């Protein structure tokens, strides 16, 4: 294993916050979803594996200042041992938008563990059922709190929703808190009525 600090691009002795921030940034860069159908896919996956191992190692040994290299098992990766082979096809189907097949396979399965809830959530997300998506991914996270894949999915769902507001604010939307704006709103409503006449 390479020097975990080097992999994450941080100085030795970096704080937990710095490690977390660097990890997030690296994962964003090498996330396999970004490199699908692209020659960099495998490279990105290998790199991600490295990043995960480095992160796991640093988090496990945080505050201990050293120790033996442990193996990773709780971070996001495109293909990881944590993912059960039973659901491999379901993942492929969801990725390709083959939602019906994925849904049927999930219904058939009797293995209702965290991964089942996670995949069901991803399926709902693709379908446009965001409320169900959030409930299911939330269940997956609470069943398996250490799983980074579920946590990151949850975060990106929440972010997608709040992203709209950020864009709107960027375009000059102001939330009418002051009295003048309120009056203006009122005036406009009245004005709209006058327009009808």
């Amino acid at each position, binding site marked *: 294993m390479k020097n975990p600090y080097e992999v994450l691009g941080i100085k030795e002795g970096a704080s937990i916050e710095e490690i977390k921030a660097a990890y997030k940034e690296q994962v964003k860069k090498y996330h396999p979803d970004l490199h699908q159908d692209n020659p960099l896919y495998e490279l990105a996956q290998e790199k991600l594996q490295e990043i995960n191992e480095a992160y796991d190692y640093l988090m496990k040994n945080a505050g201990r200042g050293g120790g033996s290299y442990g193996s990773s098992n709780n971070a996001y990766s495109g293909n990881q041992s944590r993912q059960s082979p039973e659901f491999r096809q379901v993942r492929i189907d969801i990725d390709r938008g083959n939602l019906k097949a994925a849904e049927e396979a999930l219904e058939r399965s009797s293995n209702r563990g965290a991964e089942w809830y996670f995949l069901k959530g991803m399926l*709902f997300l693709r379908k*446009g*059922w*965001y*409320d*169900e998506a*959030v409930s299911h991914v939330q269940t997956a996270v609470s069943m398996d709190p250490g799983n980074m894949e579920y946590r990151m999915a949850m975060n990106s*769902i*929440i972010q*997608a*929703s*709040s*992203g*709209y*507001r950020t*864009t*709107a604010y960027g*375009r*000059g*939307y102001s*939330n*009418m808190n002051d*009295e003048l*704006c*309120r*009056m*203006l*709103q*009122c005036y*406009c409503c009245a*004005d*709209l009525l006058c*327009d*009808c*006449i």
Partner: protein
Amino acid sequence: MLGYVVPDKPELKIREFELYSGYYCGLCKSVKQRYGQLPRIVLNYDSVFLALVLGALGSNIENIKHERCPVHPLKKRTVVYNEAAVDYAADMMLLLAYFNLMDEKRDEGGIKPAAGVIMLKKTYKKLMKSYPEKCIMIQGKLEELADLEEQKCASLDRAAEPFAKLMEEVFSAESLGYDSKTLELLGKIGYHTGKWIYLIDAYDDLEENAANGSYNPLLLQWDYQPGKESMTDFRERIKERIEFNLLFYLAELSKAWDQLDVQRNRELTENIIYSGLLRKTEEILKKGTSEDEKPL
């Protein structure tokens, strides 16, 4: 479910406002030209959004006229004429109005909806000829909606699906000759607009539905128990989740809009998408809470 999709008027430029009114009057004139005076009464602001989004894809300059009309005799109005997008939006508006009246007639009875149905019957027959598949599909979705209501469906997403799919159908204007990618994006805009309208309407009507015991998926999904909890507390409890959902719909809606090959109406339509809808969202979310103070 009408009147939620409107621009944020204080933020509009005068010329954008004129264009908006032009589309509104254009809808009205389009109905009159093709179906006569009576169906004009179903005119609404939400349909302007459809006309604007579809109109945004046209490349020529709008045919704009200034003229008087019997409803507004004093002032000349801007009217957008001869727009395929406006005609299509007018057709969809009439279609939805007809189904809506049928629904009211069945549920509540009374003279008003019955008279409306009779009035729109002829128009509907014409529409059925122009859009046979859409009519059948929309009718099917409305039946699904009624079934879910009957079954007291306790899932917001499930309950909203038929209406969202219906709006997806309404926005997918195949007859205007768009390519499949554009139709898909329009469908997405329709689907998320539908979900947004459904949820905002459900949240807006909570008190009323709880009081008269009528169906509301939110009361069921989050298990509202009248004796144990005030409606203010209930709103407070579910508000964050509702906000998450509403903003998610708007995020997806704006994502689809950004991918469209927009030729005109950009500022005006984006005023609705990024300001009008957000303003309405925040206004409805504030309802029934301590922040909900009327201006002086």
